[in-house]
């Protein structure tokens, strides 16, 4: 069958379907009519019978005859609607449906050259049949105007919005600009054919998820198989059954909706992940960021009790130092120092909670805890002190003052978590152990590391540990036992 013939055959089927409700209405005993009406109705039914007979025949001018008969059915339906006085109201609705089924846009467009020129028409028709199917935007791609018209009509009736393209080129242009739910794609078209359009779509990340239903003749089965392998979702053979078309479209729309939801969800996840990386990436080592990301509760406010080793460090006399330097030099000095310390702390998998001017607050054991948290904290502190030599060498070369840093470590239980409001929260720590660390740090000598007894108890490595000292400070109920610690020589 040639393409126009397929289109006419399918259209004829649509017309025949539209006549059935009228026949049912006329057969109802309650529906009465005058002779003129009866004559016209009979003529319409005779024409319909001829159309049915024509569809199954091998008549030589089938297409031409079908157009004539469809024209006749349309004429009778219009005549009945226009000119019969007192037409029974039960007949009006089915007659209007017949007029609609038999009307092509050719008759409403002047000059009378249907959509054979490049036409992109958007048709939205509210569902008259009321069948259950989520309405969607369908792109119908076919080089035959009759086929486009037929599909628009059938799908428009169900409430879908139908966009049409008469070539592969036009289809790709439309796909770029229009939100499409399902593509009905004719396989054989001049220029860019259906298979090529499909390939383009599957190579484009924005179009990849749009379901594609291939349309072709029975003889093109090999190519249909190739298209399914290339990512087409379904296919229809011409001339297609309207019910089958509707079912495939409904399935396609459902698939598209599901994929859309999945994509939105993925987008949200990616946005959260970008946010977390942007928020924590500068302060946390990569594995801790990954750890937060892997836990779905990662960004919820609230926290948990954790035993952690807290590190506080600062540059002794920095405030005095900075008063004698121009601001740019202070920033240069601070960035060099804090940059190096950040690298070291992240290397030892510490969590940097805060920079306060020249002071650094870091925690080992949260958000992720390990057996060697305290060990790493001490080794980190030693590495930081060692790095000061390098920093000071550079400072001297740049005629910047020498820096002397004190570090305190204390191990204790804190609340770790996202603290703040919904609008502004940060991963932070609260607890008495934080205050104790701060007091210990006050007592630490420049260039030294002072640790509490609770930290020392956790250590298994060998270090150079100084004498036991007790310190008392404001805000501490009991004296705290501390030790200096350094590398074992």
């Amino acid at each position, binding site marked *: 069958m040639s393409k126009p013939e397929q289109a006419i055959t399918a259209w004829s089927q649509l017309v025949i379907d539209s006549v059935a409700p009228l026949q049912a209405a006329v057969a109802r005993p309650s529906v009465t009519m005058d002779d003129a009406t009866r004559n016209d109705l009979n003529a319409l039914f005779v*024409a319909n019978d001829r159309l049915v007979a024509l569809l199954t025949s091998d008549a030589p001018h089938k297409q031409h005859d079908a157009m004539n008969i469809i*024209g*006749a059915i*349309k*004429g009778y339906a*219009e005549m009945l609607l226009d000119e019969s006085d007192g037409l029974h109201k039960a007949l009006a609705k089915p007659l209007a449906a017949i007029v609609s089924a038999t009307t092509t846009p050719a*008759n409403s467009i002047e000059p*009378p050259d249907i959509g054979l020129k490049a036409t992109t028409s958007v048709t939205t028709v509210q569902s008259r049949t009321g069948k259950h199917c989520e309405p969607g935007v369908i792109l119908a791609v076919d080089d035959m105007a009759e086929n486009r018209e037929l599909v628009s009509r059938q799908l428009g009736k169900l409430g879908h919005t139908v966009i049409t393209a008469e070539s592969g080129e036009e289809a790709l242009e439309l796909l770029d600009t229009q939100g499409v739910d399902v593509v009905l794609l004719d396989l054989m078209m001049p220029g860019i054919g259906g298979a090529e359009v499909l390939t383009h779509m599957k190579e484009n990340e924005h179009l990849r998820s749009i379901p594609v239903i291939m349309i072709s003749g029975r003889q093109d089965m090999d190519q249909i198989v190739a298209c399914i392998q290339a990512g087409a979702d379904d296919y229809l053979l011409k001339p297609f059954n309207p019910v089958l078309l509707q079912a495939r479209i409904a399935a396609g729309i459902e698939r598209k909706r599901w994929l859309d939801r999945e994509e939105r969800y993925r987008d949200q996840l990616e946005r959260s992940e970008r946010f977390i990386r942007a928020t924590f990436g500068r302060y946390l080592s990569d594995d801790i960021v990954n750890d937060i990301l892997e836990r779905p509760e990662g960004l919820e406010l609230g926290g948990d009790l954790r035993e952690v080793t807290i590190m506080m460090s600062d540059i002794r006399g920095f405030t005095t130092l900075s008063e004698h330097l121009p601001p740019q030099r202070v920033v240069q000095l601070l960035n060099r120092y804090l940059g190096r310390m950040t690298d070291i702390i992240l290397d030892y998998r510490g969590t940097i909670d805060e920079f306060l001017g020249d002071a650094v607050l870091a925690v080992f054991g949260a958000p992720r805890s390990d057996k060697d948290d305290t060990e790493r904290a001490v080794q980190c502190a030693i590495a930081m002190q060692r790095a000061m030599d390098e920093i000071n060498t550079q400072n001297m070369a740049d005629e910047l003052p020498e820096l002397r840093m004190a570090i305190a470590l204390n191990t204790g239980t804190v609340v770790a978590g996202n603290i703040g409001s919904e609008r502004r929260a940060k991963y932070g720590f609260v607890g008495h152990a934080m205050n104790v660390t701060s007091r210990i740090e006050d007592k630490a000598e420049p260039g030294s590391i002072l640790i509490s007894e609770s930290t020392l108890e956790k250590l298994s490595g060998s270090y150079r540990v100084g004498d036991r000292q007790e310190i008392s400070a404001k805000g501490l109920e009991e004296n705290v036992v501390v030790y200096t610690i350094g590398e074992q020589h």
Partner: protein
Amino acid sequence: MADASAPTILLVEDNEINRDMLVRRLTRAGHHVICAGDGEEALAKMHAQMPALVLLDMNLPVKDGWTTCREARANEHIQHIKIIALTAHAMDTDREAALAMGCDDYATKPIDFPSLLGKIAECLPE
């Protein structure tokens, strides 16, 4: 319903279902309609009855609409008769060809009846 003084329209159409329908509609619209089923018959009736207008299906048996139109235009007795071509396909080429052949206007099937009535009115004398 047809006015006795109304100008005669010759409808040339081989599909009797479509012909019957158009005759009924045109008659109800007040026109006087005669029919022919092929091109030979159409030319004969143009000579014998001198209709004011011919609605000529281009796809006809025996002698098609194109030939009929060309012969009518070549005959001095009937060349003044207005012709509206009717074709099943809304092809630009058909439209151009029909107008080039000497048709006065052109309508596509299935016929949009109000539009056809308008074209008929334009072709017929006041």
